[in-house]
């Protein structure tokens, strides 16, 4: 029963990792940009939610109504004002710029909010749980996080393959030059993709902040979890990303069960093993 519980909890936290990863995967898919600042944006969104809650008294989950559009707008602006200027044939400049953004964000958060760790309080939701088996309880929050992850990935999948915006994303990703002579404006397409990515980042940030303490410097490790989930699942495959998150979550849970110090290590080992066996991930879509 103990092991069943470990696996169930691992699957649920995998949902959170998939939320970290989905925005990363989307941006890479559309514009081949590896956003090193992705994790810091997640943490930034958590602080934004904290400020919103302080100012309005909203429940953390309701603060999403404000944080999601705000993060999307920030994403749109950063893409138009900054990232579009460095995107090109050379993949190094955007990498360096997002690395710079990561450092700037961490320091802005540090000077604004200090290094003290914070947490968002979701009240009764945090303690309630559903007993499924003797010894296996599913907490409301982990369940909600997982459901949100599945819903968001299903939504992104729908948007990508069933809407005109998704068509524009795919066309621009396939051949940006020809997409432009069809009348698309690559810069705007990229800006919308970044806005969408940051909307998901906002959700990830709020769920992260309800689940655990956060501080200005925890972004890079969330980035790593996101990366690992994307790579395990296979580039360009959103459902694969969810499975990647789950594998990571379960591996960490099993590691922690054996020895609490092994939690993170077990996740990295699972990642490396999969990378060694299937270098392109389990379900790759992008060559």
């Amino acid at each position: 029963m103990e092991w069943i519980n470990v696996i169930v909890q691992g699957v649920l936290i995998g949902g959170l990792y998939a939320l970290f990863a989905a925005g990363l995967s989307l941006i890479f898919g559309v514009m081949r940009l590896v956003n090193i600042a992705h994790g810091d944006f997640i943490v930034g969104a958590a602080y934004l939610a904290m400020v919103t809650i302080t100012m309005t008294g909203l429940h953390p989950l309701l603060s999403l109504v404000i944080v999601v559009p705000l993060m999307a707008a920030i994403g749109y602006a950063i893409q138009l004002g900054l990232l579009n200027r460095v995107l090109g044939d050379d993949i190094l400049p955007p990498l360096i710029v997002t690395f710079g953004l990561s450092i700037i964000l961490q320091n802005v958060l540090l000077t604004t909010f200090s290094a003290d760790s914070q947490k968002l309080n979701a009240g009764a939701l945090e303690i309630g749980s559903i007993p499924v088996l003797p010894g296996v309880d599913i907490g409301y929050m982990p369940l909600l996080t997982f459901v949100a992850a599945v819903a968001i990935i299903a939504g992104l999948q729908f948007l990508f393959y069933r809407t005109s915006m998704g068509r524009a994303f795919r066309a621009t990703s396939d051949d940006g030059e020809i997409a432009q002579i069809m009348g698309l404006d690559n810069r705007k397409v990229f800006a919308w993709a970044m806005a969408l990515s940051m909307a998901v980042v906002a959700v990830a940030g709020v769920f992260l902040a309800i689940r655990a303490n956060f501080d200005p410097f925890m972004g890079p490790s969330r980035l790593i979890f996101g990366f690992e989930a994307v790579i395990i699942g296979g580039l360009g495959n959103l459902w694969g990303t969810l499975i990647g998150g789950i594998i990571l979550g379960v591996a960490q849970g099993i590691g922690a069960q054996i020895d609490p110090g092994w939690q993170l290590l077990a996740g990295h080992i699972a990642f490396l093993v999969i990378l060694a066996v299937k270098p392109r991930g389990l379900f790759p879509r992008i060559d």
Partner: protein
Amino acid sequence: MSESILEVQNLEVFYGNAQAIHGISLTIEQGELLSLIGSNGAGKSTLFKSICGMVRPRSGTINFKGQTTAGLSPARITEMGIAMVPEGRRLFRSLSVEENLILGGYVRRPGPWTLQKVYDVFPILKERKDYPATSLSGGQQQMVAIGRALMSNPELLLLDELSLGLAPVVIKDIYELLPKILGEGMATILVEQDVTRAMQVSDHFVCMLEGRISLSGQSDAFSHDEISAAYFGT
């Protein structure tokens, strides 16, 4: 006197320091079919890309319907009524046949071409509409590329090497459909490796050699030898 729809004057195009086009001027009238011939590397595709706004000329002017296209985005130029079937087709590979066609109509220019009309001309595309575009045969892919360009209802259509990599029978099929495609009074510039065919289908021709025009005129006004000399620069 018919009106010229496109006027290119003294065009100079560079890739870095390498000059690909050395001062080219040409005009094309409404409804005319102009063949652009020339050996590999002559600069035909570069001329097309300049007209579409994909490449910025260093100097010279391009006027479309009396308006300069200088500084306009490729998207804006497409909105004005220029469409291209690019060399090598360049279909969107993660899009289905129908999605490729729909994207061609993204600028929503009004005109005779609709999804239905494209399917009427290329019935096979309707059968394959939900297939990934690049899973089709070469000839069918070329039909998608042509249909995609038509979907923007262009007034000037640029066709870059329609027959590239296609079997002779398929090439013949596509050229048999050409009158149907161009029937709506579109001006067309056709790049074609097969010079005889290019001369047969066109009213006028322009022959390029190493970025310059080596010969131009009415397609039936020159002997095979004259054209051959202009083509190879001998």
